[in-house]
């Protein structure tokens, strides 16, 4: 059995004093100290990062991490756009499936605020198809197309989308590592400026710096020594076409749907068993589609369901979503996001989520998406 035994995340935000590898170092030292693990007890490292090569001519990260850790073990970098963190976790899980009595460190990190927004947006666009790039379609633009299609098809308005951000900002106000701690209203969202019609600034996750790390092990003695530990019941990666236009359905992320179906089958649990979930709300529409594609809500009902705010902490719902603040309020340092999501589920399941602790939960799920749905990673943890 593979277990997550530790989690540490840096603050997410505009961290001008810190470089990419300063952030990596803080996350690594943080998680190892917390579980009292020596560097030499790490058997392999997996690193999720998207933009270092594109933005700052910074590659060969495995060797840079080896220098920080002062160890000589296999270290790999995973890249799957915004799903880089989830993909790194999946590779670590598969590595442990193939070996015995090993400890693996998984780090996700991104440094995005050293450059102008235009330069960072251009870098992120590298994860879109050539044709989408040539048309000037940004990621907000691609999700805006999905949103426009969804709103038209089911007769919803921009107000329906706004509830996602209201909920996630409330959760962000409870998380001291979140980039935004301010509560917002539906009106605030509707009055914010357009990024790509119909999505506005307050429908969108920010540009962020940050690093998160977890330690995984399949060593029973190591698991027994730990105060906090969660089992990894499933971690599934599914890919799909890079172009939105090649998909059968514009308002569905098939990769999420397929990854979830396999994950629930492998975990041998039902949707109703999940008590907390971290879903990939890079834009408000993305959380609504995620809830439908993961099978928590029926197709087309999400726009209505979100307005009940049943997935908000404190409202007594059976499933609380994005207690970290989601990508929207916690921030979205691209490579770190997938690890922070799994880390938040770890905190919740082990009772360490402090003022946002959801009670009586046994199972949690994380969904991490790359690009406009070209990659999806679904992970299920249990205590």
């Amino acid at each position, binding site marked *: 059995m593979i277990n997550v035994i530790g989690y540490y995340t840096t603050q997410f935000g505009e961290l001008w004093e810190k470089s990419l590898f300063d952030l990596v170092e803080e996350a690594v030292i943080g998680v190892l100290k917390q579980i009292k693990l020596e560097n030499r007890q790490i058997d392999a490292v997996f690193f999720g990062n998207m933009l270092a090569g594109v933005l700052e001519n910074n590659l060969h990260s495995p060797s840079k991490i080896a220098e920080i850790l002062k160890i000589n073990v296999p270290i790999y970098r995973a890249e799957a756009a915004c799903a880089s963190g989830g993909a790194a976790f999946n590779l670590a899980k598969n590595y442990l499936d193939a070996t015995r009595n090993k400890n693996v460190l998984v780090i996700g990190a991104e440094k995005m605020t050293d450059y*102008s927004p235009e330069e960072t*947006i251009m870098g992120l666009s590298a994860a879109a198809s050539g044709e989408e790039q*040539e*048309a*000037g379609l940004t990621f907000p633009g691609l999700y805006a197309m999905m949103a426009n299609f969804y709103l038209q098809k089911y007769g919803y308005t921009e107000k329906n989308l706004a509830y996602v951000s209201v909920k996630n900002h409330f959760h962000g106000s409870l998380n001291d590592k979140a980039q935004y701690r301010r509560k917002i209203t539906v009106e605030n969202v509707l009055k914010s400026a*357009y990024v790509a019609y119909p999505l506005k600034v307050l429908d969108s996750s920010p540009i962020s710096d940050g690093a998160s790390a977890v330690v995984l092990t399949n060593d029973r003695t190591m698991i027994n020594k730990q105060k906090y530990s969660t089992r990894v019941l499933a971690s599934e990666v599914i890919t799909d076409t890079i172009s939105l*236009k090649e998909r059968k359905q514009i308002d569905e992320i098939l990769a999420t749907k397929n990854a979830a179906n396999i994950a629930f089958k492998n975990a041998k649990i039902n949707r109703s068993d999940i008590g907390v979930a971290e879903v990939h709300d890079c834009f408000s529409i993305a959380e609504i589609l995620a809830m439908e594609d993961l099978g928590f809500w029926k197709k087309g009902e999400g726009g209505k369901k979100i307005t009940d705010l049943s997935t908000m902490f404190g409202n007594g719902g059976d499933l609380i979503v994005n207690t970290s603040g989601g990508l929207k309020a916690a921030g979205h340092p691209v490579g770190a996001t997938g690890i922070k999501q799994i880390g938040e589920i770890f905190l919740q399941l082990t009772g360490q989520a402090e003022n946002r602790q959801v009670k009586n939960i046994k199972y949690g799920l994380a969904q991490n998406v790359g690009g406009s749905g070209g990659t999806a990673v679904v992970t299920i943890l249990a205590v």
Partner: protein
Amino acid sequence: MISPIKIWRRQKEIRKILGKKGRILIWTKIFTPGADFKKYAPYPVILVELENKEKIYGQLVDYDEKDLKTGKKIISILRKVRSSTEEGVIAYGVKFKPL
């Protein structure tokens, strides 16, 4: 920097999809673009289904706000797409105008 070789390779494909009629499937309007497109913002981008059922993306130009709707008839045209530096190659590509 836009590679001239990339442009040359792409040009061969572009001429096959010029002057084609179709309809808007989905649209959006970009207010926050990447660096190469900053001077065009805000600009609409549409996903079009051509009469031969082929789907292509591009910006809509010479338009009125009322043209931004699903089902609107358009035609594909050749327009400047981007130029990264003063002395760099200018990339031409497909855009659309309303019919």
